[in-house]
C-alpha cells in the first residue's frame, strides 16, 4: 500500500487476509457500510450473504468444524448482533473456532441507547471465549490477530470483535500483521511427562482398558493416534456425540456412542472396564448418566484435556493430564511401545468384537427387526452416502436417530449441535460445510420443527448455488419432546403437535430448490439420486412414523446401566 494511513475497515480486511480468511458469512447494516465497501472490492475473501444472522454464525461454525479452520461471521449492531447470539453460544459450547465481527454505534454515542445500539460486548461476554470492543483504530491489527489466535488455539472457541462505526471509518498509521499476544493467554499444550508415565503404567497393567473419545480428539486431529493406541492396547473405543467420527464406526474396536441415547454396549463397556482413558471429553451429564457412582465403578479414571477447568469438574478422576490430546497420545504410545509388546488377543478383545457386532451404528446398513421408518431411513442414508459425505443434524429425535444409526467413517463428517442442542443448527451448518467442502455431498438430517426455524436460508443456497440436501424426518411433531411426554408424562402431548402446515415440497420449490416427497423408505435411493443430480439445493420431505421413538435411552435421573427400551437389542 502506498498510502500513509489506512482506514479501520481496510486494516480489518488486510488482517483477515493475513489470517487466511477465504469466506465470511454475514449481513450488512448501517454501521458496517465502510467495512462492506472494502470487503466487496476484496477478491481474496468471498462473502456469502445470509438471510438471518443466526444462520451466519451456524454457517461459520459448520465451516470451522469441517475444515478445522476458523469460521468468520459478520453482523451489524443491535439486532444483527443479538441475532448472532444463539449461533455463537452454540459454537462456543462445542468448542468450535469462530470469529464474529459486529458493527457498533460510534464511540461517541455508546451507552446512550443510540439507534440500533445493543451492548454486544456485555451480552456476549459469557458466551464467548473472549471478546473485544475496539476503541482505537490503531488497535485493530493486534485485536484481529489475537481474535484468530485465541479462537483457534488451546480449547477452541468463539471470539467476537465489536467494531464501532467511527473506528472503521477512521484512519491510522499502523504496522500490519503484529505478532504480539496477550500475557494472560497461555494455552496448555504440552502434557506433563510424569503424568504420562503414570498413565502408561496403568494402561500396561489394565486387563479391560476402555477409551472414551470426545470432541477434543477430532479438534486436535488425533484420530490416527487414537486408532493406534486402541489397536495396540486391544481397547475398545466409545465416543461422545461430539466424538462421533474420532474412530471409524466400522472399526472392530468401535462400540459407538455412549451415554443417555448411546449404544447399550458402549455403556456396558463403561460398566465393565478396569481402566478408562477419557480423551478430550468434558463428561457431560448426557455422557455419564446421572448416577455418577455407577459410572465406571471398577475403573481407574484417566482424563486428558487441554482445559484445566475441565479436570475434575463433572467427575473426579484418578489421573489428570492437562494438555493437547494429540501430543499426549503420541507420548503414551511411544512409552507404551517401549514397555510392552502388543498382547495376543485377550478375553476382553473377544468380548469387544461381539459387542461391536451388536452395535447399531457399527454394523452398517441392516435395519433391525421391528425397525421404525426413521431408523430404516437413517440406515439407508448411511448406506447410500460415501465415506467422505458430510452429514449435519438438527436437534431432536432426528439427531439421536442419526447418532445411533448413522455409521460415521471419517472425522469431521458428523456435525451436530451437542452442548446447546440448537434446533435450526443443522441446515445453516450444512451451508457452511458445503462451502468448506464443495466437492463433498452434504446432507442435513432434519426434524420438521427444527428446519422451520432456519429454512429461510434456502434462498442463500439458491442464490449462491450451495447444493446441500435437506432430508426432513417429517413427523409433524416436536418429536423428541413428544417422546418424553409419551414415556414420562402419560402421553399428554402438550404443545408438541405441528399440525399440517407447511407443504415442505412447495415451500422448497418456492425458493427455487429441487424437492420431492418420500412416502416410503424404498423411494429414498431414487429421491436422493435425483436430489444430487438436480444441480440445485434440494429438500426431501420424508414421511416417518408419527410416533417413532428413539430407543434405548437412559431415563432422566438414571444410570449408565439403567437403559430403558432395550427389548430389541441383541443379548450377548
Amino acid at each position, binding site marked *: 500500500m502506498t498510502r500513509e494511513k489506512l482506514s479501520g475497515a481496510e486494516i480489518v480486511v488486510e488482517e483477515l487476509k493475513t489470517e487466511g480468511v477465504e469466506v465470511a458469512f454475514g449481513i450488512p447494516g448501517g454501521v458496517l457500510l465502510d467495512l462492506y465497501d472494502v470487503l466487496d472490492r476484496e477478491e481474496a475473501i468471498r462473502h456469502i450473504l445470509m438471510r438471518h444472522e443466526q444462520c451466519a454464525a451456524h454457517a461459520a461454525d459448520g465451516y470451522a468444524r469441517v475444515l478445522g479452520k476458523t469460521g468468520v461471521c459478520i453482523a451489524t449492531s443491535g439486532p444483527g448482533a443479538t441475532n448472532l447470539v444463539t449461533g455463537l453460544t452454540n459454537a462456543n459450547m462445542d468448542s468450535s473456532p469462530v470469529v464474529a465481527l459486529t458493527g457498533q454505534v460510534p464511540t461517541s454515542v455508546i451507552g446512550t441507547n443510540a439507534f440500533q445500539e445493543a451492548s454486544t*460486548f*456485555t451480552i456476549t*461476554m*459469557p458466551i464467548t*471465549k*473472549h471478546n473485544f*470492543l475496539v476503541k482505537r483504530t490503531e488497535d485493530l491489527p493486534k485485536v484481529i490477530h489475537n481474535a484468530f489466535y*485465541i479462537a483457534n488455539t488451546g480449547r477452541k472457541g468463539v471470539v467476537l470483535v465489536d467494531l464501532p462505526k467511527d473506528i472503521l471509518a477512521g484512519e491510522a498509521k499502523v504496522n500490519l500483521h503484529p505478532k504480539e499476544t*496477550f*500475557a*494472560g*493467554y497461555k494455552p496448555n499444550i504440552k502434557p506433563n511427562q510424569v503424568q504420562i508415565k503414570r498413565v502408561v503404567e496403568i494402561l500396561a497393567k489394565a486387563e479391560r482398558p476402555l477409551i472414551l473419545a470426545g470432541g477434543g480428539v477430532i479438534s486436535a486431529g488425533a484420530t490416527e493416534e487414537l486408532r493406534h493406541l486402541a489397536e495396540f492396547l486391544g481397547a475398545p473405543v466409545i465416543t461422545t456425540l461430539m466424538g462421533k467420527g474420532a474412530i471409524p464406526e466400522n472399526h472392530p474396536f468401535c462400540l459407538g456412542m455412549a451415554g443417555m441415547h448411546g449404544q447399550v454396549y458402549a455403556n456396558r463397556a463403561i460398566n465393565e472396564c478396569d481402566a478408562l482413558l477419557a480423551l478430550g471429553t468434558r463428561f457431560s451429564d448426557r455422557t455419564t448418566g446421572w448416577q455418577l457412582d455407577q459410572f465406571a465403578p471398577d475403573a481407574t479414571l484417566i482424563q486428558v484435556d487441554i*482445559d*484445566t*477447568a475441565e*479436570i*475434575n*469438574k463433572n467427575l473426579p478422576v484418578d489421573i489428570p493430564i492437562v494438555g493437547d490430546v494429540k501430543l499426549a497420545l503420541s507420548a503414551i504410545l511411544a512409552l507404551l511401545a517401549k514397555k510392552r509388546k502388543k498382547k495376543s488377543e485377550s478375553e476382553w478383545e473377544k468380548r469387544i468384537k461381539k459387542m461391536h457386532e451388536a452395535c447399531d451404528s457399527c454394523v452398517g446398513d441392516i435395519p433391525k427387526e421391528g425397525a421404525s421408518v426413521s431408523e430404516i431411513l437413517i440406515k439407508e442414508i448411511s448406506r447410500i452416502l460415501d465415506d467422505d459425505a458430510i452429514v449435519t443434524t438438527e436437534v431432536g429425535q432426528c439427531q439421536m436417530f442419526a447418532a445411533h444409526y448413522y455409521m460415521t467413517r471419517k472425522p469431521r463428517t458428523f456435525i451436530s449441535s451437542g452442548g446447546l442442542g440448537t434446533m435450526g443448527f443443522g441446515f445453516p451448518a450444512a451451508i457452511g460445510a458445503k462451502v468448506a467442502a464443495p466437492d463433498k455431498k452434504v446432507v442435513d438430517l432434519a426434524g420438521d420443527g427444527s428446519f422451520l426455524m432456519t429454512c429461510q436460508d434456502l434462498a442463500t443456497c439458491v442464490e449462491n448455488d450451495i447444493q446441500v440436501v435437506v432430508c426432513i424426518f417429517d413427523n409433524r411433531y416436536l418429536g423428541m419432546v413428544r417422546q418424553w411426554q409419551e414415556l414420562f408424562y402419560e402421553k399428554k402431548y402438550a404443545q408438541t403437535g405441528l399440525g399440517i402446515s407447511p407443504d415442505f415440497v412447495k415451500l422448497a420449490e418456492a425458493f427455487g430448490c429441487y424437492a420431492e416427497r418420500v412416502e416410503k423408505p424404498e423411494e429414498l435411493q431414487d429421491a436422493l439420486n435425483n436430489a444430487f443430480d438436480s444441480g440445485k439445493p434440494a429438500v426431501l420431505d420424508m414421511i416417518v412414523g408419527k410416533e417413532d421413538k428413539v430407543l434405548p435411552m437412559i431415563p432422566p435421573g438414571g444410570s449408565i446401566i439403567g437403559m430403558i427400551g432395550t427389548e430389541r437389542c441383541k443379548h450377548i
Partner: protein
Amino acid sequence: MQTHIISLLVEDHPGVLTRMSGMFTQRGINITSLTVSPCEKEGLSRMTVAIKGSESELEKVRKQISNLIEVIKVVNLGKKDAIVRDLCLLRVHVKDSGARSEVMQLAESYGAKIVDAALDSVTLELTEEPERINRFVDLMRHFGVKQLYRTGVTAIGIGAGLER
C-alpha cells in the same frame, strides 16, 4: 462454609471486572468482598476477592478465572500464608462523657484511630484482620453504631513463596 481469598493480577481494562464477577455469578457464588486497585506493574491491577464456599467449588471457579485472557495470575491465599487486612471506618454514638471515654479506651486497645469527633459521636478508623474488626465492631454496637464502612479485604502472601 469457609471464607476463601483469591488474589488476581489482571489487565487494567474496562470489562475485566464484569468478566471476572460473571464467573461467580454463573456458579451462584456470592462475593463477600472485593477490592480493585493499581499495583506495582503499570497497566495491571490487583483484585482481591473474598468468597464463602466449599474448597471444591472454589477450585472450580479459580480454574475458570485463570482461563480468562485478561487474568495474568490467580493465587489462592490461605489464612496461614497471607497477611490479610481490611479497613473500617465507623461512627459510634456517644451519649455522654462516660461513653466517650469508654469508646476511646477500647479504640486505643484495638489500635483504632480517632479521625473525627462530634458532640454525640466519634468516628474511628481501624485497619486490621477482618475477624478483629468484626470483634471491634461488635463491641461498638453496645454504644450504637451510626454508620459503618469497610473496604473489603486486601491480602499479600507471606515471604517470596507466592510470587512466582
